[in-house]
C-alpha cells in the first residue's frame, strides 16, 4: 500500500474508498483490508492477529475519535472481534472533495492535463485505483459547470461522504485480552513496516479531540512523548512510531504548513501527491526527546520574543527526517530525527519565502536571539559540542557550506541539556493551543 503517512484518518478512509462496496455508515458494514497485513488488536492495543489484504471485516462500532473501528473477524487464528485502524480498510466507493479546488485531470498523475477544478463538497464515485498509487479514476454524478463526468483526482483531497461514522455506535471499550502471539513485534501498525502509515498525524483537529479525551488538563502530546521517552517500546495510539522510534511532529492545515506554538513549516509536502516521500508530514519524523526540546524552545520563543506569529519573528522550519530511509539526498545529519532546518528570521512581517543572511530584510538580531533560545534548550550542531550551522557566524553559529538560507540545529536526545529542557517542559495552552 502506498504511504498515506500522516493524512487524517478521515481523509485516508476516503482516499482508500475505491471499490463498489455497499453503502457505508451503519453497523454491519463490510469493509476490506487494504494493507498487506493488518493487525487486529484489543482496544488497549494488544495484538490479537493479523489479516491479509482483501480480508473482509464487518464493522460493528468505532472509538470516540473515529480513528479505529471495532470489527467482526472471520479468519484463522483470530478471535471473533477486534479493533483496526480505519486507515487500512476500504469502506466505500463514494467520497467528496475536501479541498477548495481539486484538480480533475486527464490521467492518474500531476503531469497529466488539467481539466477543471472540483469545488469542495463535490460528490465523486471512485471507479479505479490501479493505474497509479494514490490516484483515483472517478465518476462525477453531478459534475460542476465546465467539468466532464469522468477524470482522475488524487485521493489525498477526498474525504468520506457525510455521515460516514455518524451512524456507527461508539463502542469504545475493552475486548478480553488474548495471548499475544505476535512474532517480531515492530512499531508500525500494518505488516508492511517499511512504510508505516500512522493513524493520527498531529492534525490540530485530532489534537483537540485527544486533549478532550484526556480531560484537557495536560495535552496528550506531552504525555505521550514522556511515555515514549521512558519506554522506547511504548506504542502510542495517537503518535505511531516509525524507524528508530521516531514520531511525526505535529502539523496542521490544508497544506500541513502550520506547526505548533505559532511556528510555520515551509515544506508543502501535500502538494506532491503520488510520491511516498512527499506524503503528509513525510519529512517531519523526529525523535520524541528532540520533539520535546524543540517544542520547549518554540514555546519559549513565542512567549518571550514573538507573541505575534504574523511577524517576521515567526519560526519557520523544514526538513527533519524521513521515516522510510536513513538518509535522503545526502542529508547525513537528517537521519535520526535529531536535526531540524530553520529559516533565518526577517524584519517586518512574516513571509513564507527563502531568505539568506545577505538578503534585504534579514534580521540578524532576531536570528541571533532565536539561535540563542535554541541553545538554551540544548540546540547544537550535529555534535553536542559544536554550534548550530549557519553562515552568519555573528549569530554564534558554525559556518557550513550551503547554510546561507537555513540554520541547521540539532537537539540530540543524549545531550543532558536536551533532556533537561524536556523534563522541564509544561505546555502553556495560551501559547501552544494546538498541543492542548
Amino acid at each position, binding site marked *: 500500500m502506498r504511504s498515506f503517512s500522516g493524512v487524517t484518518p478521515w481523509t485516508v478512509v476516503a482516499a482508500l474508498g475505491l471499490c463498489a462496496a455497499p453503502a457505508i455508515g451503519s453497523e454491519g458494514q463490510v469493509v476490506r483490508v487494504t494493507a498487506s497485513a493488518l493487525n487486529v488488536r484489543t482496544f488497549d492495543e494488544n495484538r490479537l492477529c493479523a489479516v491479509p489484504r482483501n480480508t473482509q471485516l464487518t464493522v460493528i462500532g468505532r472509538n470516540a475519535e473515529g480513528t479505529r473501528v471495532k470489527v467482526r473477524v472471520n479468519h484463522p487464528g483470530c478471535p471473533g472481534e477486534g479493533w483496526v485502524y480505519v486507515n487500512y480498510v476500504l469502506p466505500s466507493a463514494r467520497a467528496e472533495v475536501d479541498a477548495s479546488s481539486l484538480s480533475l485531470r486527464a490521467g492518474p498523475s500531476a503531469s497529466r492535463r488539467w481539466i477543471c477544478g472540483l469545488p469542495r463538497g463535490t460528490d465523486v464515485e471512485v471507479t479505479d485505483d490501479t493505474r497509479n498509487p494514490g490516484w483515483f479514476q472517478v465518476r462525477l454524478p453531478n459534475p460542476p459547470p465546465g467539468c466532464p463526468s469522468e477524470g482522475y483526482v488524487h485521493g489525498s483531497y477526498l474525504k468520506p461522504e457525510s455521515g460516514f461514522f455518524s451512524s456507527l455506535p461508539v463502542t469504545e471499550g475493552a475486548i478480553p485480552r488474548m495471548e499475544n502471539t505476535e512474532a517480531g513485534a515492530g512499531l508500525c501498525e500494518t505488516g508492511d513496516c517499511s512504510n508505516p502509515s500512522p493513524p493520527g498525524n498531529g492534525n490540530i483537529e485530532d489534537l483537540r479531540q485527544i486533549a478532550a479525551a484526556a480531560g484537557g488538563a495536560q495535552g496528550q502530546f506531552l504525555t505521550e512523548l514522556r511515555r515514549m521517552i521512558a519506554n522506547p517500546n511504548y506504542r502510542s495510539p495517537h503518535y505511531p512510531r516509525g524507524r528508530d522510534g521516531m514520531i511525526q511532529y505535529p502539523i496542521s492545515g490544508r497544506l500541513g504548513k502550520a506547526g505548533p506554538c505559532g511556528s510555520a513549516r515551509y515544506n508543502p509536502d501535500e502538494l506532491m501527491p503520488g510520491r511516498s516521500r*512527499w506524503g503528509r508530514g513525510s519529512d517531519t519524523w523526529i525523535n520524541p526527546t528532540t520533539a520535546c526540546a524543540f517544542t520547549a524552545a518554540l514555546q519559549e520563543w513565542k512567549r518571550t520574543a514573538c507573541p505575534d506569529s*504574523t511577524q517576521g519573528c515567526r519560526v519557520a522550519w*523544514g526538513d527533519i527526517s524521513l521515516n522510510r530511509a536513513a538518509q535522503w539526498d545526502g542529508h547525513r545529519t537528517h537521519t535520526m530525527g535529531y536535526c531540524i532546518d530553520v529559516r533565518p528570521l526577517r524584519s517586518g512581517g512574516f513571509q513564507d*519565502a527563502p531568505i539568506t543572511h545577505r538578503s534585504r530584510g534579514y534580521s540578524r538580531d532576531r536570528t541571533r536571539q532565536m539561535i540563542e533560545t535554541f541553545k538554551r534548550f540544548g540546540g547544537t550542531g550535529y555534535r553536542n559540542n559544536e554550534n548550530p550551522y549557519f553562515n552568519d557566524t555573528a549569530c554564534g553559529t558554525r559556518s557550513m557550506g*550551503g547554510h546561507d538560507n*537555513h540554520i*541547521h540545529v540539532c537537539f540530540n536526545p543524549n545531550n543532558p541539556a536536551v533532556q533537561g529542557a524536556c523534563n522541564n517542559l509544561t505546555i502553556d495552552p495560551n501559547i501552544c493551543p*494546538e498541543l492542548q
Partner: protein
Amino acid sequence: MTRLLLAATLPFLLSSPSGATQSCAGIVQGVNEWELVQNNRMIEGFSLFDVEDWSASGGFQMLAITDKAPAGVKLQMEFRQGLRGRVLETIDLPLRTWERDSKLRIAFDRYPEDVFARHPRSIFVLRLVSADGRVFCESSHAVVDDEP
C-alpha cells in the same frame, strides 16, 4: 565539492544564456502559501518573492507572472549543465489566472520538487518569451544541495 562548483558558477549567474538583457526579477516571482493557527482558527496567506537558487530551504510552490509582463508571453524553464552547458530539459510552463489574486498568472499547481529532482546540481533558467519568439526576460539560478 558542490560548494566549489557553485562558487565557480556564481559569477556567471547574472549573465543570460540567450543574451537577453532584462532580468526576470520582479516579473517572474516565486509563490508560497502559508498557514497559521490564530485564535483557534486556521488562516491562510501567500508570499511573493524573487526566485533564488533552488534548495530544500529555498524553493517555491508556484511561479507567478506579475502584471509587469506583457500579455501573451510564454514561460519557459530550462535546465542546463552550466550556464553555457548542455541543455538538459526545456519545459513550457502553462500559465493560468490565479483565483487568489487575479493580477497574477501562475505556473505549477503542485510543488515542483519532482521537476528539480531530475536535475540536481544544475542551472535553471526562467525565460519569458513573447509570441514572436523574442526573449522578454531571462534569469538563471542554481539547483543546490543545502545539507551536510
